[in-house]
């Protein structure tokens, strides 16, 4: 490899994906669509973790794999979140016959 990729390129990609995911969270009416957009945002954060791990210098006494371990735990929590989220959406769908987030307003004032 003669040319290297600068760190900022990975950061730009991650921030662009994060912005797209935020757009999806704000614009989707279907609850599953909102979940998918949240997954995009979590992936953007993971790219940032791994990029900073690879480009930064290793902190003393913190082990060789700091960012990767953080990203691994993010993946774990994302998997748990999707399982519970899909269960909740199915419950709401059975109760109100809809997966539209605008109809789930039982807690609004």
């Amino acid at each position, binding site marked *: *490899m*003669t*040319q*290297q*990729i600068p*760190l*900022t*390129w*990975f*950061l*730009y*990609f991650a*921030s*662009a*994906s994060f912005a*797209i*995911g*935020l*757009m999806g969270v*704000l*614009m989707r009416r*279907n609850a*599953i*669509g909102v*979940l*998918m*957009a949240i*997954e*995009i945002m979590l*992936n953007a954060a993971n*790219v940032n973790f*791994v990029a900073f*791990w*690879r*480009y*930064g210098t*290793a902190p003393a006494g913190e*082990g*060789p*794999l700091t960012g*990767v*371990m953080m990203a691994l*735990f993010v*993946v*774990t*929590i*994302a*998997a*748990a979140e*999707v*399982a*519970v989220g*899909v*269960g*909740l*959406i199915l*419950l709401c*769908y059975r109760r109100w016959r809809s*997966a*539209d987030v605008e109809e789930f307003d039982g807690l609004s004032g």
Partner: protein
Amino acid sequence: MIQALFIALSAFGLLMALGTVFAKNLVHAGLYLVAFFFIVACQFVMLEAEFMAAIQVLIYIGAVAVLLMFGIMLTRNIQGDDTTIVTKQWRLLGIGAAGSVLIVLVLAINSYEPWTALAVRPEFPVKQSTTTPRGQAIISMTPAVGREMMTRYVVPFELAGLLLTAALVGAVVLAQYDNADEAEALAESSKQSATTS
């Protein structure tokens, strides 16, 4: 060469993310999401974190995307595909909010000198005898991850296991039929449709 590859892959990935957000048909959106996950796995490979790429393919494409697909197919029939995106003024607001977040992030990345100057990764000596623990972890990441999981990160590891168990039980309890007459009504309707058909 590698830079051109990165730009092409990133552009494709961002297009797929946009497709996930804007696709009218939710099944198409799920397929775009799979492509986006795969591009993120490619980025992990470019960052020399091959183990993360494998985890990304296994968990995100293999489990999360399939689960989301099941969710889409189970909640799909009544609500039409045209109601999946909000009305026009909300759409403008969403694009505006996301665009301003993007501008703030890009300006912040651009203005921080230690990040913009970082174009070369820290080298690691490839020779087995002279390599650092970090270089060793990059060369063979899977045993390093296992060792870290069992030593330094053992408490978060156990907590993650507890969380996954709780999420498993919670998802089963949530998706179960909790309402007896609702289940009865469902059985009734299926019996009726069976007799009519």
